[in-house]
Protein backbone atom coordinates (compact mmCIF):
# COMPACT_ATOMS: atom_id res chain seq x y z
CA UNK A 1 0.00 0.00 0.00
CA UNK A 2 2.82 2.36 0.95
CA UNK A 3 4.59 1.49 -2.27
CA UNK A 4 1.44 2.19 -4.27
CA UNK A 5 1.11 5.61 -2.69
CA UNK A 6 4.75 6.34 -3.40
CA UNK A 7 4.51 5.16 -6.99
CA UNK A 8 1.36 7.11 -7.78
CA UNK A 9 1.93 10.16 -5.58
CA UNK A 10 2.66 12.48 -8.51
CA UNK A 11 -0.37 11.22 -10.37
CA UNK A 12 -2.57 11.83 -7.33
CA UNK A 13 -1.23 15.36 -7.00
CA UNK A 14 -2.02 15.92 -10.69
CA UNK A 15 -5.61 14.68 -10.32
CA UNK A 16 -6.23 16.78 -7.24
CA UNK A 17 -4.87 19.87 -9.00
CA UNK A 18 -7.16 19.30 -11.99
CA UNK A 19 -10.17 18.83 -9.75
CA UNK A 20 -9.40 22.00 -7.81
CA UNK A 21 -9.00 23.89 -11.08
CA UNK A 22 -12.32 22.61 -12.47
CA UNK A 23 -14.08 23.37 -9.20
CA UNK A 24 -12.72 26.92 -9.36
CA UNK A 25 -13.68 27.39 -13.02
CA UNK A 26 -17.24 26.26 -12.39
CA UNK A 27 -17.75 28.17 -9.15
CA UNK A 28 -16.48 31.39 -10.63
CA UNK A 29 -18.87 30.77 -13.58
CA UNK A 30 -16.09 30.82 -16.17
CA UNK A 31 -17.39 27.47 -17.43
CA UNK A 32 -21.12 26.68 -17.19
CA UNK A 33 -22.04 23.71 -14.96
CA UNK A 34 -23.84 21.81 -17.75
CA UNK A 35 -20.59 21.65 -19.76
CA UNK A 36 -18.34 20.46 -16.97
CA UNK A 37 -19.83 19.82 -13.57
CA UNK A 38 -17.95 20.75 -10.42
CA UNK A 39 -16.30 17.69 -8.84
CA UNK A 40 -18.22 18.38 -5.64
CA UNK A 41 -21.57 18.27 -7.42
CA UNK A 42 -20.59 14.96 -9.09
CA UNK A 43 -19.71 13.62 -5.67
CA UNK A 44 -23.01 14.94 -4.37
CA UNK A 45 -24.88 13.23 -7.16
CA UNK A 46 -23.22 9.89 -6.37
CA UNK A 47 -23.98 10.24 -2.67
CA UNK A 48 -27.63 11.15 -3.30
CA UNK A 49 -28.27 8.53 -5.96
CA UNK A 50 -26.00 5.74 -4.72
CA UNK A 51 -28.78 3.22 -4.20
CA UNK A 52 -30.12 3.17 -7.76
CA UNK A 53 -26.64 3.74 -9.19
CA UNK A 54 -25.13 0.74 -7.46
CA UNK A 55 -28.01 -1.68 -6.98
CA UNK A 56 -29.79 -1.07 -10.24
CA UNK A 57 -27.47 0.34 -12.87
CA UNK A 58 -24.06 -0.97 -11.82
CA UNK A 59 -25.64 -4.35 -11.18
CA UNK A 60 -27.10 -4.44 -14.71
CA UNK A 61 -23.83 -3.36 -16.31
CA UNK A 62 -21.88 -5.90 -14.31
CA UNK A 63 -24.18 -8.75 -15.35
CA UNK A 64 -23.72 -7.86 -19.02
CA UNK A 65 -20.00 -7.48 -18.49
CA UNK A 66 -19.59 -10.79 -16.65
CA UNK A 67 -21.58 -12.88 -19.11
CA UNK A 68 -19.89 -11.25 -22.09
CA UNK A 69 -16.41 -11.52 -20.62
CA UNK A 70 -16.80 -15.18 -19.68
CA UNK A 71 -18.13 -16.04 -23.14
CA UNK A 72 -15.29 -14.08 -24.80
CA UNK A 73 -12.58 -15.77 -22.73
CA UNK A 74 -14.01 -19.26 -23.16
CA UNK A 75 -14.67 -18.94 -26.86
CA UNK A 76 -11.47 -16.98 -27.47
CA UNK A 77 -9.23 -19.52 -25.78
CA UNK A 78 -11.14 -22.33 -27.47
CA UNK A 79 -10.67 -20.81 -30.90
CA UNK A 80 -6.99 -20.02 -30.27
CA UNK A 81 -6.31 -23.61 -29.23
CA UNK A 82 -8.15 -25.04 -32.23
CA UNK A 83 -6.29 -22.70 -34.57
CA UNK A 84 -3.04 -23.85 -32.97
CA UNK A 85 -3.85 -27.48 -33.60
CA UNK A 86 -5.48 -27.18 -37.01
CA UNK A 87 -3.99 -25.28 -39.92
CA UNK A 88 -7.34 -25.53 -41.71
CA UNK A 89 -9.21 -23.81 -38.91
CA UNK A 90 -6.47 -21.19 -38.69
CA UNK A 91 -6.58 -20.43 -42.42
CA UNK A 92 -10.36 -20.33 -42.36
CA UNK A 93 -11.05 -18.30 -39.24
CA UNK A 94 -8.05 -16.09 -38.45
CA UNK A 95 -8.90 -13.57 -41.20
CA UNK A 96 -12.49 -13.55 -39.98
CA UNK A 97 -11.32 -12.73 -36.46
CA UNK A 98 -9.18 -9.90 -37.83
CA UNK A 99 -11.99 -8.51 -39.97
CA UNK A 100 -14.39 -8.64 -37.04
CA UNK A 101 -12.24 -5.92 -35.51
CA UNK A 102 -12.48 -3.66 -38.54
CA UNK A 103 -16.27 -3.48 -38.38
CA UNK A 104 -17.36 -0.40 -36.46
CA UNK A 105 -19.28 -1.93 -33.59
CA UNK A 106 -21.67 0.99 -33.37
CA UNK A 107 -22.72 0.21 -36.94
CA UNK A 108 -23.38 -3.40 -36.07
CA UNK A 109 -25.43 -2.67 -33.03
CA UNK A 110 -28.81 -2.12 -34.73
CA UNK A 111 -28.45 -5.68 -35.99
CA UNK A 112 -27.86 -6.92 -32.49
CA UNK A 113 -30.97 -5.12 -31.33
CA UNK A 114 -32.82 -6.70 -34.26
CA UNK A 115 -31.58 -10.14 -33.28
CA UNK A 116 -31.72 -9.99 -29.52
CA UNK A 117 -34.19 -7.17 -28.92
CA UNK A 118 -33.73 -5.08 -25.82
CA UNK A 119 -32.85 -8.08 -23.71
CA UNK A 120 -29.50 -8.44 -21.96
CA UNK A 121 -28.17 -10.44 -24.93
CA UNK A 122 -27.82 -7.48 -27.26
CA UNK A 123 -25.43 -5.88 -24.76
CA UNK A 124 -23.65 -9.18 -24.18
CA UNK A 125 -23.13 -9.48 -27.92
CA UNK A 126 -21.40 -6.10 -28.10
CA UNK A 127 -19.28 -7.01 -25.07
CA UNK A 128 -18.21 -10.30 -26.62
CA UNK A 129 -17.39 -8.67 -29.93
CA UNK A 130 -15.20 -6.10 -28.20
CA UNK A 131 -13.19 -8.46 -25.98
CA UNK A 132 -13.05 -11.63 -28.07
CA UNK A 133 -10.31 -10.37 -30.36
CA UNK A 134 -7.57 -9.52 -27.84
CA UNK A 135 -8.10 -12.90 -26.17
CA UNK A 136 -7.84 -14.88 -29.41
CA UNK A 137 -4.81 -13.04 -30.75
CA UNK A 138 -2.90 -13.02 -27.46
CA UNK A 139 -3.56 -16.68 -26.70
CA UNK A 140 -2.82 -17.82 -30.23
CA UNK A 141 0.42 -15.83 -30.41
CA UNK A 142 1.43 -17.19 -27.03
CA UNK A 143 0.85 -20.78 -28.13
CA UNK A 144 2.69 -20.26 -31.39
CA UNK A 145 5.70 -18.52 -29.87
CA UNK A 146 6.88 -21.75 -28.27
CA UNK A 147 10.60 -22.32 -28.83
CA UNK A 148 11.19 -25.43 -30.94
CA UNK A 149 14.27 -26.37 -28.90
CA UNK A 150 12.06 -26.85 -25.85
CA UNK A 151 9.73 -29.07 -27.86
CA UNK A 152 12.71 -31.16 -29.00
CA UNK A 153 13.92 -31.50 -25.44
CA UNK A 154 10.57 -32.91 -24.32
CA UNK A 155 10.30 -35.13 -27.38
CA UNK A 156 13.75 -36.54 -26.65
CA UNK A 157 12.36 -37.61 -23.29
CA UNK A 158 9.60 -39.43 -25.10
CA UNK A 159 6.82 -36.91 -24.43
CA UNK A 160 3.62 -37.22 -26.46
CA UNK A 161 1.67 -34.32 -27.99
CA UNK A 162 -0.65 -33.95 -25.04
CA UNK A 163 2.24 -33.80 -22.57
CA UNK A 164 4.04 -31.21 -24.67
CA UNK A 165 0.90 -29.09 -24.79
CA UNK A 166 0.21 -29.34 -21.07
CA UNK A 167 3.76 -28.98 -19.79
CA UNK A 168 5.15 -26.57 -22.33
CA UNK A 169 2.69 -24.76 -24.59
CA UNK A 170 0.26 -23.73 -21.89
CA UNK A 171 2.78 -22.28 -19.43
CA UNK A 172 4.63 -20.62 -22.32
CA UNK A 173 1.43 -18.99 -23.58
CA UNK A 174 0.38 -17.66 -20.18
CA UNK A 175 2.26 -14.33 -20.19
CA UNK A 176 0.81 -13.44 -23.57
CA UNK A 177 -2.64 -14.70 -22.54
CA UNK A 178 -2.62 -12.41 -19.52
CA UNK A 179 -1.71 -9.38 -21.63
CA UNK A 180 -4.77 -10.16 -23.74
CA UNK A 181 -6.89 -10.75 -20.66
CA UNK A 182 -6.02 -7.36 -19.18
CA UNK A 183 -7.02 -5.59 -22.38
CA UNK A 184 -10.15 -7.69 -22.76
CA UNK A 185 -11.39 -7.05 -19.24
CA UNK A 186 -11.35 -3.30 -19.85
CA UNK A 187 -12.84 -3.65 -23.35
CA UNK A 188 -15.64 -5.77 -21.94
CA UNK A 189 -16.73 -2.99 -19.66
CA UNK A 190 -16.61 -0.52 -22.54
CA UNK A 191 -18.62 -3.00 -24.62
CA UNK A 192 -21.32 -3.34 -21.99
CA UNK A 193 -21.60 0.45 -21.73
CA UNK A 194 -21.86 0.94 -25.49
CA UNK A 195 -24.40 -1.85 -25.65
CA UNK A 196 -26.58 0.05 -23.21
CA UNK A 197 -26.53 3.22 -25.25
CA UNK A 198 -28.15 1.34 -28.09
CA UNK A 199 -31.19 0.36 -26.17
CA UNK A 200 -31.61 -0.46 -22.53
CA UNK A 201 -33.70 0.37 -19.54
CA UNK A 202 -30.98 0.04 -16.94
CA UNK A 203 -27.21 0.11 -16.60
CA UNK A 204 -24.61 2.83 -16.20
CA UNK A 205 -24.39 3.44 -19.96
CA UNK A 206 -28.14 3.88 -20.11
CA UNK A 207 -28.03 6.13 -17.03
CA UNK A 208 -25.39 8.43 -18.46
CA UNK A 209 -27.36 8.79 -21.66
CA UNK A 210 -30.56 9.60 -19.82
CA UNK A 211 -28.73 12.20 -17.72
CA UNK A 212 -27.22 13.70 -20.84
CA UNK A 213 -30.73 14.02 -22.26
CA UNK A 214 -31.68 15.95 -19.11
CA UNK A 215 -28.61 18.18 -19.49
CA UNK A 216 -27.53 16.82 -16.12
CA UNK A 217 -23.74 16.80 -16.49
CA UNK A 218 -23.24 15.74 -12.88
CA UNK A 219 -25.29 12.63 -13.56
CA UNK A 220 -23.27 11.80 -16.68
CA UNK A 221 -20.02 12.23 -14.82
CA UNK A 222 -21.29 10.26 -11.84
CA UNK A 223 -21.74 7.18 -14.02
CA UNK A 224 -18.40 7.81 -15.72
CA UNK A 225 -16.66 7.98 -12.35
CA UNK A 226 -18.25 4.72 -11.23
CA UNK A 227 -17.39 2.99 -14.50
CA UNK A 228 -13.81 4.20 -14.26
CA UNK A 229 -13.40 3.00 -10.70
CA UNK A 230 -14.88 -0.38 -11.63
CA UNK A 231 -12.58 -0.56 -14.66
CA UNK A 232 -9.53 0.12 -12.50
CA UNK A 233 -10.59 -2.52 -9.98
CA UNK A 234 -11.14 -5.10 -12.72
CA UNK A 235 -7.78 -4.34 -14.29
CA UNK A 236 -6.10 -4.57 -10.90
CA UNK A 237 -7.75 -7.94 -10.29
CA UNK A 238 -6.51 -9.24 -13.63
CA UNK A 239 -3.00 -7.95 -12.87
CA UNK A 240 -3.10 -9.58 -9.46
CA UNK A 241 -4.13 -12.89 -10.98
CA UNK A 242 -1.30 -12.50 -13.49
CA UNK A 243 1.26 -11.80 -10.76
CA UNK A 244 0.05 -14.76 -8.76
CA UNK A 245 0.19 -17.12 -11.72
CA UNK A 246 3.49 -15.88 -13.13
CA UNK A 247 5.26 -15.71 -9.79
CA UNK A 248 8.52 -16.83 -11.40
CA UNK A 249 8.65 -13.62 -13.43
CA UNK A 250 8.82 -11.38 -10.39
CA UNK A 251 11.77 -13.09 -8.78
CA UNK A 252 15.04 -11.76 -9.97
Amino acid sequence: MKNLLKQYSLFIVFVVLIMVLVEYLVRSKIVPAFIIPAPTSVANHIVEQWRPLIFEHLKATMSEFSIGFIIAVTAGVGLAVSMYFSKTIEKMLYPAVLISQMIPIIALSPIFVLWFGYSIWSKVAVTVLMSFFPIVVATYDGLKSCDKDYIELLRSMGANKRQIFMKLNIPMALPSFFSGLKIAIVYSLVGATIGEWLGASEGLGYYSRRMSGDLNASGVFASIVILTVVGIILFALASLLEKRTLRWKNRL
Partner: protein
Amino acid sequence: MTLLLKNVTYTFPKKEYPVIDKLYLTVQQGEFVSLIGKSGTGKSTILKLITGLLTADEGEISLYKKPVTLGDVGYMPQKDLLFPWRTILDNIMIGAEIQKEIKLSKEDARSWLKKVGLKDYEQAYPNQLSGGMRQRVAFLRTLLTEKDVLLLDEPFGALDSITKKEMQAWLLSIWQELDKTIIFITHDLEEACYLSDRIILLKDDRTIEETTVPLPRPRYQEMLHSQILLELRKELEKKI
Protein backbone atom coordinates in the same frame (compact mmCIF):
# COMPACT_ATOMS: atom_id res chain seq x y z
CA MET B 1 28.56 -53.04 -27.11
CA THR B 2 26.01 -50.54 -25.91
CA LEU B 3 25.43 -48.32 -28.86
CA LEU B 4 25.93 -49.08 -32.52
CA LEU B 5 25.64 -46.78 -35.50
CA LYS B 6 25.95 -48.75 -38.72
CA ASN B 7 26.29 -47.05 -42.11
CA VAL B 8 24.21 -44.13 -40.96
CA THR B 9 23.50 -41.53 -43.62
CA TYR B 10 21.54 -38.35 -43.12
CA THR B 11 20.82 -35.47 -45.48
CA PHE B 12 19.09 -32.30 -44.31
CA PRO B 13 15.86 -31.56 -46.16
CA LYS B 14 16.52 -29.61 -49.40
CA LYS B 15 20.29 -30.23 -49.21
CA GLU B 16 22.17 -32.01 -51.95
CA TYR B 17 24.90 -33.74 -49.98
CA PRO B 18 24.55 -35.77 -46.81
CA VAL B 19 25.91 -34.23 -43.63
CA ILE B 20 26.48 -37.71 -42.21
CA ASP B 21 27.71 -40.24 -44.76
CA LYS B 22 27.91 -43.97 -44.01
CA LEU B 23 28.97 -43.38 -40.43
CA TYR B 24 30.08 -46.41 -38.47
CA LEU B 25 30.51 -45.91 -34.75
CA THR B 26 30.33 -48.12 -31.67
CA VAL B 27 30.32 -47.06 -28.06
CA GLN B 28 30.93 -49.39 -25.14
CA GLN B 29 29.13 -49.49 -21.84
CA GLY B 30 30.60 -46.90 -19.46
CA GLU B 31 32.70 -45.25 -22.13
CA PHE B 32 33.26 -41.51 -22.36
CA VAL B 33 33.45 -40.50 -26.02
CA SER B 34 33.93 -36.98 -27.34
CA LEU B 35 32.91 -35.75 -30.77
CA ILE B 36 35.04 -32.94 -32.14
CA GLY B 37 35.18 -31.24 -35.50
CA LYS B 38 34.53 -27.94 -37.22
CA SER B 39 31.09 -26.40 -37.35
CA GLY B 40 28.88 -28.08 -39.89
CA THR B 41 30.50 -31.49 -39.66
CA GLY B 42 27.34 -32.89 -38.12
CA LYS B 43 28.20 -33.33 -34.45
CA SER B 44 24.84 -32.19 -33.14
CA THR B 45 23.12 -34.06 -35.95
CA ILE B 46 24.66 -37.33 -34.76
CA LEU B 47 23.28 -36.75 -31.27
CA LYS B 48 19.84 -35.92 -32.65
CA LEU B 49 19.92 -39.09 -34.72
CA ILE B 50 20.76 -41.14 -31.64
CA THR B 51 17.93 -39.57 -29.63
CA GLY B 52 15.48 -40.31 -32.43
CA LEU B 53 14.64 -36.62 -32.99
CA LEU B 54 15.96 -37.11 -36.52
CA THR B 55 15.54 -40.28 -38.55
CA ALA B 56 18.45 -41.58 -40.59
CA ASP B 57 17.91 -41.94 -44.35
CA GLU B 58 19.91 -45.12 -44.36
CA GLY B 59 21.61 -47.39 -41.88
CA GLU B 60 20.65 -48.40 -38.40
CA ILE B 61 21.16 -47.08 -34.90
CA SER B 62 20.70 -49.56 -32.12
CA LEU B 63 20.94 -49.51 -28.37
CA TYR B 64 21.47 -52.88 -26.71
CA LYS B 65 20.67 -54.43 -30.11
CA LYS B 66 17.29 -52.73 -30.40
CA PRO B 67 16.57 -49.77 -32.70
CA VAL B 68 16.57 -46.52 -30.69
CA THR B 69 13.37 -44.58 -30.20
CA LEU B 70 12.55 -41.28 -28.53
CA GLY B 71 12.96 -41.50 -24.79
CA ASP B 72 15.69 -44.16 -24.84
CA VAL B 73 18.66 -41.93 -24.07
CA GLY B 74 19.29 -38.83 -21.98
CA TYR B 75 19.83 -35.73 -24.13
CA MET B 76 21.24 -32.41 -22.98
CA PRO B 77 21.04 -29.77 -25.71
CA GLN B 78 23.44 -26.84 -26.08
CA LYS B 79 21.18 -24.33 -24.38
CA ASP B 80 20.21 -25.23 -20.83
CA LEU B 81 16.49 -24.91 -21.73
CA LEU B 82 15.31 -24.83 -18.13
CA PHE B 83 11.61 -24.09 -17.82
CA PRO B 84 11.52 -20.59 -16.33
CA TRP B 85 8.14 -21.16 -14.67
CA ARG B 86 9.27 -24.25 -12.81
CA THR B 87 11.31 -24.27 -9.63
CA ILE B 88 14.70 -25.98 -9.79
CA LEU B 89 13.27 -29.05 -8.08
CA ASP B 90 10.37 -29.24 -10.54
CA ASN B 91 12.75 -28.72 -13.45
CA ILE B 92 14.76 -31.82 -12.61
CA MET B 93 11.57 -33.81 -11.99
CA ILE B 94 10.27 -33.27 -15.53
CA GLY B 95 11.66 -36.52 -16.91
CA ALA B 96 9.85 -38.52 -14.25
CA GLU B 97 6.63 -36.68 -15.04
CA ILE B 98 6.88 -37.66 -18.68
CA GLN B 99 8.02 -41.25 -18.35
CA LYS B 100 5.97 -43.09 -15.82
CA GLU B 101 8.53 -45.86 -15.47
CA ILE B 102 11.06 -43.45 -13.94
CA LYS B 103 10.63 -43.84 -10.21
CA LEU B 104 12.13 -40.62 -8.95
CA SER B 105 10.80 -39.32 -5.66
CA LYS B 106 11.06 -35.71 -4.54
CA GLU B 107 13.37 -36.92 -1.81
CA ASP B 108 15.77 -38.47 -4.33
CA ALA B 109 15.69 -35.31 -6.39
CA ARG B 110 16.42 -33.22 -3.29
CA SER B 111 19.37 -35.36 -2.33
CA TRP B 112 20.73 -34.93 -5.84
CA LEU B 113 20.46 -31.17 -5.58
CA LYS B 114 22.33 -31.39 -2.31
CA LYS B 115 25.01 -33.49 -3.94
CA VAL B 116 25.66 -30.91 -6.65
CA GLY B 117 25.69 -28.01 -4.19
CA LEU B 118 22.27 -26.59 -5.03
CA LYS B 119 20.55 -27.56 -1.79
CA ASP B 120 19.43 -24.01 -1.03
CA TYR B 121 18.01 -23.48 -4.49
CA GLU B 122 15.37 -26.17 -4.80
CA GLN B 123 12.55 -23.63 -4.57
CA ALA B 124 14.38 -20.99 -6.64
CA TYR B 125 13.51 -20.24 -10.26
CA PRO B 126 16.07 -20.59 -13.07
CA ASN B 127 16.40 -16.82 -13.57
CA GLN B 128 17.88 -16.59 -10.08
CA LEU B 129 20.78 -18.91 -10.93
CA SER B 130 24.20 -18.28 -12.46
CA GLY B 131 25.28 -19.89 -15.72
CA GLY B 132 27.25 -22.68 -14.04
CA MET B 133 24.39 -23.50 -11.71
CA ARG B 134 21.89 -23.59 -14.56
CA GLN B 135 24.16 -25.95 -16.44
CA ARG B 136 24.34 -28.23 -13.42
CA VAL B 137 20.56 -28.26 -13.18
CA ALA B 138 20.26 -29.05 -16.89
CA PHE B 139 22.71 -31.90 -16.47
CA LEU B 140 20.85 -33.23 -13.44
CA ARG B 141 17.63 -33.15 -15.42
CA THR B 142 19.30 -35.28 -18.09
CA LEU B 143 20.89 -37.61 -15.54
CA LEU B 144 17.62 -38.13 -13.68
CA THR B 145 15.94 -39.46 -16.77
CA GLU B 146 17.80 -42.57 -15.55
CA LYS B 147 19.12 -43.55 -18.95
CA ASP B 148 22.39 -45.45 -19.40
CA VAL B 149 23.49 -43.33 -22.33
CA LEU B 150 23.81 -39.57 -21.94
CA LEU B 151 24.32 -37.30 -24.92
CA LEU B 152 25.79 -33.94 -23.96
CA ASP B 153 25.90 -31.26 -26.64
CA GLU B 154 28.59 -28.75 -25.66
CA PRO B 155 27.36 -28.49 -22.10
CA PHE B 156 30.12 -26.14 -20.95
CA GLY B 157 30.51 -24.09 -24.12
CA ALA B 158 29.11 -20.89 -22.68
CA LEU B 159 30.89 -20.98 -19.34
CA ASP B 160 33.95 -19.00 -18.24
CA SER B 161 37.14 -21.03 -17.91
CA ILE B 162 37.17 -21.29 -14.12
CA THR B 163 33.56 -22.45 -13.91
CA LYS B 164 34.25 -24.79 -16.78
CA LYS B 165 37.13 -26.48 -14.90
CA GLU B 166 34.87 -26.95 -11.88
CA MET B 167 32.15 -28.43 -14.02
CA GLN B 168 34.55 -30.83 -15.74
CA ALA B 169 35.79 -32.19 -12.41
CA TRP B 170 32.23 -32.47 -11.26
CA LEU B 171 31.11 -34.30 -14.40
CA LEU B 172 34.01 -36.76 -14.15
CA SER B 173 33.20 -37.57 -10.53
CA ILE B 174 29.55 -38.26 -11.34
CA TRP B 175 30.38 -40.31 -14.41
CA GLN B 176 32.83 -42.46 -12.44
CA GLU B 177 30.30 -43.06 -9.73
CA LEU B 178 27.40 -44.05 -11.94
CA ASP B 179 28.82 -46.09 -14.81
CA LYS B 180 27.07 -44.01 -17.45
CA THR B 181 27.96 -44.01 -21.12
CA ILE B 182 28.59 -40.46 -22.29
CA ILE B 183 28.83 -38.97 -25.75
CA PHE B 184 30.09 -35.45 -25.44
CA ILE B 185 30.37 -32.69 -28.02
CA THR B 186 32.95 -29.98 -27.52
CA HIS B 187 34.95 -27.39 -29.41
CA ASP B 188 37.57 -27.37 -26.70
CA LEU B 189 40.32 -29.89 -27.56
CA GLU B 190 41.85 -29.71 -24.09
CA GLU B 191 38.46 -30.56 -22.62
CA ALA B 192 38.05 -33.48 -25.04
CA CYS B 193 41.46 -34.93 -24.12
CA TYR B 194 41.01 -34.43 -20.41
CA LEU B 195 37.57 -36.02 -20.15
CA SER B 196 37.35 -38.77 -22.76
CA ASP B 197 38.42 -42.34 -23.27
CA ARG B 198 38.13 -41.88 -26.99
CA ILE B 199 37.90 -38.89 -29.29
CA ILE B 200 36.06 -39.02 -32.60
CA LEU B 201 37.21 -36.37 -35.03
CA LEU B 202 34.63 -35.55 -37.71
CA LYS B 203 36.30 -34.28 -40.86
CA ASP B 204 35.17 -32.12 -43.72
CA ASP B 205 35.18 -35.05 -46.13
CA ARG B 206 32.58 -36.87 -43.97
CA THR B 207 35.05 -39.43 -42.68
CA ILE B 208 35.94 -39.89 -39.04
CA GLU B 209 39.18 -40.51 -37.23
CA GLU B 210 39.29 -42.13 -33.81
CA THR B 211 41.92 -41.43 -31.18
CA THR B 212 42.22 -43.23 -27.87
CA VAL B 213 43.31 -41.03 -24.99
CA PRO B 214 46.24 -42.74 -23.23
CA LEU B 215 45.71 -40.98 -19.90
CA PRO B 216 44.91 -43.27 -16.93
CA ARG B 217 41.76 -43.07 -14.81
CA PRO B 218 40.85 -41.41 -12.56
CA ARG B 219 41.85 -38.12 -14.09
CA TYR B 220 43.09 -35.16 -12.12
CA GLN B 221 43.28 -31.54 -13.01
CA GLU B 222 47.11 -31.69 -12.96
CA MET B 223 46.90 -33.94 -16.01
CA LEU B 224 45.80 -30.90 -18.00
CA HIS B 225 49.48 -29.94 -18.03
CA SER B 226 50.84 -33.44 -18.63
CA GLN B 227 53.07 -34.12 -21.61
CA ILE B 228 50.70 -36.76 -22.99
CA LEU B 229 47.76 -34.38 -23.07
CA LEU B 230 49.75 -31.55 -24.60
CA GLU B 231 51.04 -33.74 -27.39
CA LEU B 232 47.66 -35.28 -28.07
CA ARG B 233 46.16 -31.86 -28.27
CA LYS B 234 48.80 -30.64 -30.68
CA GLU B 235 48.24 -33.65 -32.87
CA LEU B 236 44.47 -33.13 -32.94
CA GLU B 237 44.89 -29.46 -33.69
CA LYS B 238 46.84 -30.36 -36.81
CA LYS B 239 44.20 -32.80 -38.01
CA ILE B 240 41.08 -30.78 -37.37
